[in-house]
């Protein structure tokens, strides 16, 4: 063997060592050196492919695609990356003609993705078994174990029913892979088996074992994945661990993983009601995933639409969602877009008919794709529509169907939510009156208690709080104010204990509004209402929830105005003035940030438009002879 060949071969060995231990920088350098040392076109092309494999691991699909244009020989990797960017399975199937291992692996992976996102009856089992057997014959244990892990993950992701059947078999397979990985060259391979065990079975010890093995090989990417798992699966110091992982992924230039961490941080911030922080992280995710593939981009689109809904940008949602529905995107995303649009149409335009068409389409798509978890969500929206149509027998039937589906999926939380919905459905026809019969009330309370039982049993405090909040809303609607107040108080305490600030603030608003509706508003109820509304206002203002902010300011103004009229005391007058002015500012803010004059109802007892609130403000200032301020309110109305 010549010196050149020797160094070529040793570089190649180094490349694979760095590849399997995830040292992307050194692997890339080895691939570049191989390009420089290449003796012919074939060797250069092979070296480009190696470099592209690292770009693929980093999530830089576009760069990989560009690099692979220089490859002159048959390259299944090239077709696979094209597929990740455009989702065109036909082109991949026409392109990948070989029967070598790489061809089989990329074809199988692409088909698995296709099955998940577009549906279709692909029989992948023989291919997966064949690939695994061939790798074992070649004694390529690292690749065999890694390929099997990837397949296992996708299989589990794709199969939503029968998890209780799959779990023991998956455990056996993972244990066998763990044993097999003792014959692999790299400890990182075994660590990856532990990593999947930790994720799939919430096995903390497995995560620690992975950390130790990754540490032995200084596999920084692997270590960062473990930190991310400590945060996401075990809830351990989420911010600290996610940021620790993020810093490592930045150093290793792993943008796919960075995107995942930013998305986790955004979702964590959102669950705590920190909208501004969520938007910041989401924008970071968008930046890093810019060069990602089709699925990453469409995933971002869905999140973007969801954030628009939270921000109240309904006009933009309608435009973008329609564009996406008209385009040729995978069925799974189409179903999600249809759901978001349907929700918007119900919320903003009360266009129940169009929403129903969209949601039925979404249900059909999801049923076809066998995405039962998402089907459950879609059916829940359909349930809301049926509820609005006041068809009690149909509502109860669909409700029971949803409970059954939730049960099959082991989704206790969804079951509980449906019990709450059914509790509402029973008394819905009598809302606003005091004529709810004992029998209805008994059945309704039974449903609520079933929901509370489930949440208590599953230690879901937020869920339990949600039930109390719903009970509060129901009691408020049938004029059982004291019961409503007690339910809201329970909800608030539970939300607070979990740090769910947005939900806590909304409950504060609900308590305030409940007091406003009391027929006997008195000093004691005034103090309670004022305290809760004020706390909520401070929170909405700080977090930039513009819609909730002006509405809340309106309710505080209204409360103080009522007391001023009743008592003629100046302190109520000056508080009413203060909050009406705050409301005016908040409405202006809301209009600046929202593309539509539409609003979200703060409570289900009916909302108020900015125009109505401004008229009320103007009337108040006219009544206290402050005409100039009153005119400012009047002139701020869009309809004037």
């Amino acid at each position, binding site marked *: 063997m010549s010196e050149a060949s020797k160094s070529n071969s040793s570089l190649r060995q180094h490349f694979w060592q760095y590849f399997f231990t995830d040292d992307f920088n050194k692997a890339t350098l080895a691939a570049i050196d191989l390009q420089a040392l290449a003796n012919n076109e074939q060797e250069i092309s092979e070296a480009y492919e190696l470099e592209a494999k690292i770009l693929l691991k980093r999530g830089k699909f576009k760069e990989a695609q560009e690099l692979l244009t220089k490859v002159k020989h048959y390259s299944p990797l090239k077709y696979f990356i094209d597929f990740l960017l455009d989702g065109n399975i036909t082109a991949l199937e026409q392109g990948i003609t070989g029967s070598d291992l790489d061809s089989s692996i990329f074809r199988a992976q692409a088909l698995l993705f296709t099955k998940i996102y577009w549906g279709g009856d692909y029989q992948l089992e023989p291919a997966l078994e064949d690939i*695994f057997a061939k790798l074992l014959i070649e004694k390529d244990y690292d690749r065999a174990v890694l390929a099997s892990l990837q397949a296992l993950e996708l299989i589990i992701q794709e199969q939503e029913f029968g998890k209780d059947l799959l779990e023991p078999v998956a455990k*056996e*397979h993972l244990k066998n892979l763990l044993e097999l990985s003792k014959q692999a060259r790299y400890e990182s391979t075994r660590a990856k088996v532990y990593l999947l065990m930790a994720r799939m079975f919430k096995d903390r010890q497995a995560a620690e074992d992975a950390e130790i093995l990754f540490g032995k090989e200084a596999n920084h990417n692997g270590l960062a994945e473990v930190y991310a798992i400590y945060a996401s699966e075990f809830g351990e110091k989420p911010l600290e661990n996610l940021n620790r992982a993020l810093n490592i992924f930045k150093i290793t230039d792993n943008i796919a993983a960075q995107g995942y961490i930013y998305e986790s941080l955004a979702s964590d911030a959102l669950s705590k009601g920190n909208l501004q922080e969520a938007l910041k992280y989401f924008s970071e995710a968008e930046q890093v995933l810019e060069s990602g593939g089709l699925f990453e981009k469409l995933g971002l689109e869905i999140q973007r639409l969801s954030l628009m809904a939270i921000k109240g940008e309904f006009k933009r949602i309608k435009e973008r969602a329609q564009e996406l529905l008209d385009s040729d995107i995978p069925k799974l995303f189409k179903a999600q877009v249809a759901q978001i649009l349907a929700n918007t149409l119900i919320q903003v335009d009360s266009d129940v008919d169009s929403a129903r068409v969209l949601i039925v389409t979404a249900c059909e798509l999801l049923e076809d794709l066998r995405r039962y978890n998402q089907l459950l969500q879609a059916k829940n929206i359909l349930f809301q529509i049926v509820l609005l149509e006041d068809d009690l027998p149909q509502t109860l039937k669909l409700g029971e169907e949803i409970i059954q589906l939730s049960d099959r999926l082991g989704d206790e939380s969804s079951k509980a939510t449906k019990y709450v919905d059914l509790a509402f459905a029973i008394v819905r026809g009598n809302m606003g009156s005091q004529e709810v019969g004992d029998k209805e009330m008994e059945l309704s309370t039974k449903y609520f208690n079933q929901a509370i039982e489930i949440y208590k049993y599953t230690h879901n405090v937020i869920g339990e709080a949600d039930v109390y909040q719903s009970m509060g809303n129901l009691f408020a609607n049938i004029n059982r104010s004291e019961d409503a107040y007690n339910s809201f108080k329970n909800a608030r305490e539970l939300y607070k204990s979990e740090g769910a600030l947005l939900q806590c603030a909304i409950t504060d608003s609900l308590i305030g509004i409940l007091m406003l509706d009391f027929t006997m508003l008195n000093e004691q109820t005034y103090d309670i209402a004022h305290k809760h509304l004020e706390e909520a206002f401070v929170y909405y203002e700080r977090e930039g929830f513009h819609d909730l902010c002006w509405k809340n300011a309106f309710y505080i103004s209204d409360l103080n105005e009522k007391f001023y009229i009743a008592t003629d005391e100046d302190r109520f007058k000056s508080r009413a003035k203060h909050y009406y002015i705050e409301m005016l500012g908040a409405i202006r803010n809301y209009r600046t940030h929202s593309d539509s004059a539409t609003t979200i109802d703060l409570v289900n007892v009916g909302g108020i438009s900015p125009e109505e609130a401004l008229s009320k403000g103007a009337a108040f200032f006219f009544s206290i002879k402050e005409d100039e301020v009153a005119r400012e309110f009047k002139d701020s109305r869009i309809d004037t």
Partner: protein
Amino acid sequence: MDTSTAKTEEIKSRKRPQLAAYSELLSTLEALNLRSQQTQDKAELAKLSLTKLLITKRFANIDEEILEISKQRMSANAGEFFSDILVFEAKRLAFKEAANQCQKQANQTQV
């Protein structure tokens, strides 16, 4: 034939081959479990467990079948679907027992 009877017939015709397939999958899993007990070769064990996993995935579709039948039962209101569910559930239980054997086997290997 009215809608309800048509639905019943449709389910029945779909059910027969499904039930046969489930019985076959169950026997295969049991046979694979036996083979796993008879070998110590790590590669062979991993190959066997992958096959078991893929078989289980196919079997897991039984849940979809049960759900479908339950839905039909609700809409068609035909009492006989109840016994269909029981037949499927019985197969499922047997399969689950065989699946649990896999985990027990894995635990023994580790010891």
